[in-house]
Structures are given as structure tokens and as C-alpha cells.
């Protein structure tokens, strides 16, 4: 397969004209305004929220209609170049990395809400719509769109679909796949197909369910039918303060085991609390080992009973105190703190890297102990903020990337933690996706035949591997990339 490198001034072996020709064809579709091909404008597209591996695309296109996406994809097929869709570029796993260069199809100009139907409880939206813009549009209707990833203010619906995004409230309400009932997809060959639909009970395979979380390897989503969820009538938001992380994790297990399904159950340890205080001055207790942010929602008559049970369970597990948010503003602020926790880490250390492991909830105390021990063994400071109710941990390893040796130790520690998650019966990603970041873990998590079945499936739907090459599965399609050895962890954007 030729790459598009030839387009933007690559070798002059006669292919240049093909590249130029292709650019002209693109221009005819999206216009001057819908296309970037200068090197100095492509640079910012060389990575997303994952900054370790980089590759600039050869051209970036901004289609505004499904038809334009179709035409673009067909041209990519015709000229045999890889292409990759991109939303807001907030992937933490390199989901938007244009491995092998090629065409980047950016969906940020397809951001309309096409229909909101409260009677039938769905909305039809374009892929580039920002997650929180949908919720904003629903304000006052009594409905909302349930998946609420921490990046919801920036991330797009198509990105959520690609990675099957979660968020704190998915503990009770489920992840993206539970809220998408249909999709319009442009296939890797450039056909438009409709998966699923508005009505229930269709005699067909659940291809919507299959597509969600496929990280762009089955095509480009150009429309999504999403389910709307009724707003809960009442909330109770609590903050449990614990002396130790262990006590907090035990409280989590106790709550889950008691059959309570909180709307959200999040843990933050001392390090995080410290950073959050610096950023938002919420009044978190700085000397506590860990705090739990717990929310129950439901009927006004029920939430107090549930809240009380939770408070009792926290106390039994040794909570020093359990505070309640007394006003909607206070609740909002608590959630803001939680959702921006990652960012606030920037205030603790020059660089950090985070992992996205999952363990069965009963194993949380074990994995947390392991993380603490792992930090000690490697001399790395690790802080924790995570979706405790789901067992989805996000240990954050702090370091200074200018320190070579420390950087290596961080990498080592990260891998040990993920290996431990697998050992405890968990997974290496709960919501960020495999992307390019965790490709090497797929074979640890899955056996040979599992990977083979998945690869065959990809080959069936994305036969030439042109669409989002080298994502999700270790065995690459036709557009293989050179194995990039991971030399750095990192969340400080290196250039």
C-alpha cells in the first residue's frame, strides 16, 4: 500500500502526481476551507491525548455530510491510502493516531442534533457533537444522555461510540453501548449502512453493540441514535472520609455487596485530594488517607434510606466522617473536582502517566495494596482517583520526564500494575480503549484463538485494513506500523 506521504512533497518517483490528483479530488469535495495539507497545519494532528507516539497525517479533511465522508473513503480506497476518523482528539490511548500517515477524517463539523424525540426517548445526533452539548440541549426536558465521561465537555459522541466511553455515573446507568440503539456507518469500503434503529426487538444481529467500542476499525460513524434517560428525581451526594485507602476500599466492597447500586462511587486518595485542594479549594480534609465520593439517586422517598445505609456501611468500615453535599452548587463543585482531578495532577508533578486497569470489585483492596507496594518498590509516587464502584482503577504515576532512570521505573511500575489486574481477573482498560497504547497487552489478556477470531472479524468488515490501521488488535492490517518500543510513559505533552 502506498502511503500518502507522496502527497505532501514526498519522493518524486512519479507518484507525486497521483497525490496531487488525490488532493484535488478531496478539494472538490470539501472545498479549500475543509482541508488542511500544509505541514505547519498538520502538526497539531500528530497526536491526541496520548502523546507518546506521534505521526502527522498527510491531509486532514473536515467533511460536513455523510455523503462527503463516503466520497472521501472511496477515494482513499481508489488511491489505496489509509484513513482514520477523529473527533475531539481526547483519546488517552492513541485512538486517533494516523498510523502510517494518510487521510485524517475529522468529524468536528458534523455536530448537529438532528432530532430529539422525548416521546420515544431518543435523539439522533451527528458524530462530532460534543457529549455535554447534548445534555445541555436536553436541559429542562426531564431527560439526559447518561454516559458522562470526565472529558464530556470536550469529547464527541463518535469518539464515545468508538471507545464505548464510560464515566462516573455508568455504574448505575451503563456505558455508551447501553445507550446507543442505532448508527449510520460509512464502511471501510465507502458504503453507508444503517445499524440498529429506533424501535426495539429487531430480528437482526446486534451490530450496533459490536460497532460501539470497535475503535474506528469497522468504519466511520456518521450518525448515532442515542437513548435518553429520565433525570433522577433526587440525589444525595456524600463524601466519606477515611484514614486509610484500605478502609475506603473495604467500604466500597461492602456497599456493592449490600446490593446497593449507587449512581456513582468514586475514590480519591490523599495525593489527589491535595492536588484538588490546590486547584479548587473545596475544603477536602488534607490529612485523610482517602475519600469516597458517593452519589445515590432515585425517588425522593428512597434516597435518604439508601444514603443512610451507605453512611452506616462507611462508618462500619472505619470512616472518620461522612459529609453530605448540602446544595446543588456544592454537589456540582464536588463533581467538578472529581471530573477535573486528572488535570489537577499537573500541579503535583511535572509529568504523570495514568493507567486504566479494572479488577473485580472484591479485589480492590488487593490491587490498591499492590499499587502502594509497587510505588515503594520502584520509588515512584502514585496517587489514585478512580471509578471505585466499577472496579476501574486509575493509578497516576508521578515523575519528571527529565529523569531518565525514574521514567524507566515508572514504565516498569505501570506494566506491573496492569499485569496484576490481569492476574486478579480484570482487564487492562475499562474505558480508555486499547488504541495503540495497550496493543502489547492484548495477547496477555486474550488467548491466540480469541485474537484470531477478532482479527478475522476485522478482516471481514475492514478487508484491506485501510480504516484505522493498527488499532485495537496487535496483528496489524495491511498498513502495518513499525513497532514503536514504548520508551516513555507520560502525560506531559512532549513534542
Amino acid at each position, binding site marked *: 500500500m502506498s502511503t500518502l506521504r507522496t502527497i505532501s512533497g514526498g519522493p518524486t518517483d512519479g507518484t507525486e502526481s497521483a497525490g496531487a490528483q488525490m488532493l484535488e479530488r478531496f478539494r472538490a469535495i470539501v472545498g479549500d476551507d475543509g482541508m488542511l495539507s500544509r505541514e505547519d497545519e498538520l502538526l497539531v494532528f500528530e497526536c491526541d491525548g496520548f502523546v507518546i507516539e506521534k505521526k502527522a497525517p498527510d491531509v486532514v479533511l473536515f467533511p460536513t455530510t455523510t455523503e462527503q465522508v463516503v466520497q472521501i473513503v472511496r477515494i482513499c480506497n481508489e488511491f489505496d491510502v489509509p484513513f482514520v476518523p477523529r473527533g475531539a482528539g481526547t483519546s488517552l490511548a492513541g485512538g486517533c493516531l494516523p498510523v502510517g500517515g494518510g487521510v485524517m477524517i475529522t468529524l468536528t463539523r458534523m455536530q448537529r442534533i438532528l432530532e430529539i424525540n422525548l416521546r420515544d426517548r431518543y435523539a439522533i445526533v451527528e458524530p462530532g457533537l460534543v457529549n455535554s452539548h447534548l445534555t*445541555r440541549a436536553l436541559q429542562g426536558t426531564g431527560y439526559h444522555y447518561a454516559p458522562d465521561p470526565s472529558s464530556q465537555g470536550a469529547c464527541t459522541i463518535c469518539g464515545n461510540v468508538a471507545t464505548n466511553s464510560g464515566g462516573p455515573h455508568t455504574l448505575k446507568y451503563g456505558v455508551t453501548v447501553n445507550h446507543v440503539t442505532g448508527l449510520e456507518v460509512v464502511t471501510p469500503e465507502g458504503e453507508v449502512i444503517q445499524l440498529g434503529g429506533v424501535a426495539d426487538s429487531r430480528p437482526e444481529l446486534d451490530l450496533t453493540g459490536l460497532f460501539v467500542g470497535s475503535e474506528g476499525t469497522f468504519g466511520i460513524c456518521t450518525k448515532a441514535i442515542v437513548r435518553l434517560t429520565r433525570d433522577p428525581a433526587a440525589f444525595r451526594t456524600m463524601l466519606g472520609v477515611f484514614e486509610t485507602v484500605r478502609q475506603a476500599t473495604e467500604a466500597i466492597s461492602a456497599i456493592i455487596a449490600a446490593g446497593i447500586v449507587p449512581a456513582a462511587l468514586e475514590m480519591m486518595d490523599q495525593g489527589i485530594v491535595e492536588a484538588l485542594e490546590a486547584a479548587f479549594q473545596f475544603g477536602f480534609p488534607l490529612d485523610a488517607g482517602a475519600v469516597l465520593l458517593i452519589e445515590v439517586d432515585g425517588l425522593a422517598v428512597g434516597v435518604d434510606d439508601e444514603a443512610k445505609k451507605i453512611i452506616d456501611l462507611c462508618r462500619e468500615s472505619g470512616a472518620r466522617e461522612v459529609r453530605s453535599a448540602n446544595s446543588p452548587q456544592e454537589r456540582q463543585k464536588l463533581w467538578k473536582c472529581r471530573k477535573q482531578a486528572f488535570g489537577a495532577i499537573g500541579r503535583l508533578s511535572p509529568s504523570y502517566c495514568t493507567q486504566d486497569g479494572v479488577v473485580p470489585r472484591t479485589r480492590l483492596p488487593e490491587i490498591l495494596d499492590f499499587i502502594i507496594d509497587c510505588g515503594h518498590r520502584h520509588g515512584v509516587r502514585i496517587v489514585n482517583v478512580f471509578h471505585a464502584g466499577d472496579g476501574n482503577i486509575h493509578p497516576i504515576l508521578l515523575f519528571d520526564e527529565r529523569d531518565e532512570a525514574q521514567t524507566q521505573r515508572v514504565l516498569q511500575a505501570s506494566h506491573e500494575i496492569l499485569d496484576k489486574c490481569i492476574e486478579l481477573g480484570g482487564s487492562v482498560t475499562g474505558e480508555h480503549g486499547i488504541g495503540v497504547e495497550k496493543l502489547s497487552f492484548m495477547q496477555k489478556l486474550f488467548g491466540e484463538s480469541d485474537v484470531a477470531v477478532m482479527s478475522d472479524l476485522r478482516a471481514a468488515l475492514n478487508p484491506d485494513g485501510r480504516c484505522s490501521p493498527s488499532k485495537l488488535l496487535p496483528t496489524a492490517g495491511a498498513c502495518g506500523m513499525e513497532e514503536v518500543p514504548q520508551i516513555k510513559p507520560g502525560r506531559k505533552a512532549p*513534542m
Partner: protein
Amino acid sequence: MAERVLDHVEYDRFLDCVHCGLCTSACPTYLETGDENNSPRGRIYLMRAVADGKLPLSDTVQRHLDLCLDCRSCETACPSGVQYGRLIEPFRAATQEQASLAGQDVTRSWFHRGILYGLFPYPNRMKWALAPARWAQRLGLDRLAETLGLFSLFPKKLRRMQRLLPPLPRPERALPVVLSAQGTKRARVGLFTGCVAEAVFSPTNRATARVLQANGCEVVVPPTQVCCGAIHYHSGTAEQALKFALQNVAAFPVDGLDAIIVDVAGGGALVQEYKHIAEELCRENPQQQTALRALAGKMRDVSEFLMELGPVQPTGSLPLKATYHDACHLVHAQRIREQPRDLLELIPDLKLVPLAESDICCGAAGSYNLTEADMADRLAQRKLDNILASGAQVVLSANAGCTLQIQAAIRKSGKPLWTVHPIELLDLSYRNEPPPEFLRVQPTTN
């Protein structure tokens, strides 16, 4: 270029950005274009690439940076505490320096020289320059002239300014130097009367003074104060900004005041930034630095100050449906979001409805609507659409530039909507007055 940038920008500030992208959809220019190059993350990446020598400062790169509104919405959105302003402004200073070293006249256009720097900073000149427009408006001739296309005879940018002008008040006599407190005196404050605002919005300043008086404040209005320098600072002509800043230091008796009240958000934020100016521009003059810092330390937005003081309950009923637009320099630069809303909630019978994207820039952004007309128009339209969707009759805008911009958009749309400073509404309520004539009469539609 790379070295010059490094001279101005503290490189570590680039490193604060972890490339998470959470700021992108907070950025008006990204919302409009969907192009990462026009997003905060993208701009930081571009600037850093220039600083690293990875990219030359090409016209394309410059374009993307120029399109930035300096609205600081990205700073509010950024969880990592990236101070975007402290990247882009020194970066701009570096590019200006480079340009002038290369022999280019940075204030090259007649527009910059004649209008932007010549006119805006001086309230009196502004008044005179606007006089014909005012008369034309009063007589209804402006609409006629617009219809006949007479304004098209003016240079294009001046035409834009004309379009932006609100119905102008009759020039008023300057405020007295000292206004006494009503009831028990609770504080002694200075009142900053900005330049554009004083010429175009003198009623706002007067309303602010009255509201402060009603709240038991003695108000001091130094006649020797001048423009805050916002336009200059944000357009990269730092020296001029410093000059104005120092003049204001001299004008206000800082020590004898509990606060210096600002009702023009742009200026207010800048005064906060006097601290930064002090750091960046008077490194060699510690005395100036201290004086500037002291001035900055006293500056308060009027709503912030009143909420701190504990407002006196206004009593006049204003049965209106209103929506509040967050001026960038209030909400993003000063993080003042709740206070104006809280104050407005005090007005009996006023119904405050939420405005979608209330904190997304309307495109005014200082002189931006004069220099980046296209994007400014798009953002004005976006703002207007959101306002219309809110169903409000009154738009509350606490910033002179925003008000101009929003009023222009509304006039163009011909919709029956009014834009007013929150303090003016409060003032009405304190004085038990109904909405004034112009709030009750439907504006002419064209």
C-alpha cells in the same frame, strides 16, 4: 524567531499543558471551525513548535494565533491550570518585536493608528468622533443613511464601527469628583470610568455610582484617570499600555479607598493584569511595580464588591424575562460568574433564564470585532441564536464591548430584544422606576 520567543515566554509554561484537549470545545474559534489549529491546545502546540524551532512562524501559523480572541475561556476549562494568556501575550510581544526589527510598521494600517490608538483611549475624542453618528441616530437619519447606503462611502472598518454603535445617549457632564453615600456610610470607593464605556455608556457609569451610593458607599471619581490600556496590551503594544497604567496609578488615591470599582469587564480584568504588566514591563523599576500592584489589588468588579459588602435589597419590581451573558473578562479572567446573577436575583419579579454557551465569547473581544470581522460576525450570530433560543426579552451584559457587539447583532436581526448592563437594571430597581422608555418601546426593525 525561536530565541526571540524564548526571550519572552517562560518555556516551562508550555510544559504545563498535558495535551488532554479538555479545553478545545470551550474555545469559540474551535467551536466555529472545528479545526484543532484554532483551539487552545493547538495554539499552544503551534507556539511551542515555533519556540522549539520545529516550525517557522509562517503566515499560516500567525493566522491561527491571530484568530485567538484572548477570551481565556480555555483557562477556565483547563484542569491543569495552564495560563494560556501568559503564553499567547508574550508570544505576541515577541512577534511584534520581530516585525518591528524587520522594519515593518506594526501599527501600519490607518485603522490601527487613527482609530484604534488615536480614538479609543480618549473619552473626549471619542465623544466628538461619535457626535455626527449620535445626531444621525437621534434624528433617525442613520437608518435612512444605512438604507441609502451612505455609510458604504466610509472606509470599511469605520462602517463596521458605525454598525456596532448602540443608540447613543446625549453626552453628559462629567460625574462630580465625590458622590456621597446614602444612609450609613459603609465604604469609600473609587470609580473607574473606562474610555469607550464613558463615551458610549456614560449611563452605566452613572448607574454604578448610584447603586454604590444606595449601598452606602462614598464614590470618588478622579477626573485625571485614563483608558486602562486593554486594547494596547492585547494588541501587543505594551509600552502604550504601561503608560496608561501609570497614569491611572497617579490618578487614584489608592490608600484612601476600600476598593476601586470597575463596571467595564475588559478594563477590570486588565487592571488585575496590571500585576502581570508590572512583572513583565517594569522589571527594572520596583517602585512602579509596587504602585501598579497596589492599584491592581484594590480593583473590584462592581458585582463582586457588592456581594462582598452585602447588598441592600432593591425594591422596585421589574417584571421582565432576562438572560445573563458572561463577559469573558469577567467570567474567565476574573472568575466572576455567580455574583452578577446573585445580584440580579434580588430584583423583584425579574425572571432570569439560562443562556446556552453563556460564557462563550460573543466576538467582541476588545478590538477583535474590528480586526477579525469574519469570525466576530460568526460568533455574534452564534450568540444571537443562543439568546433567541433562551426566550428572554432582555440580555444582560456587563461589558461595554459585548454590549456593542450583541446590540449590533440584535439590530441586524431586527428582533425585539434589549441589551443592558446588569447594574442599570439594579439601579432602576433601587430607584423604584419602571424600565425606561427605550426598554418599553420596540426597537425599529429594518
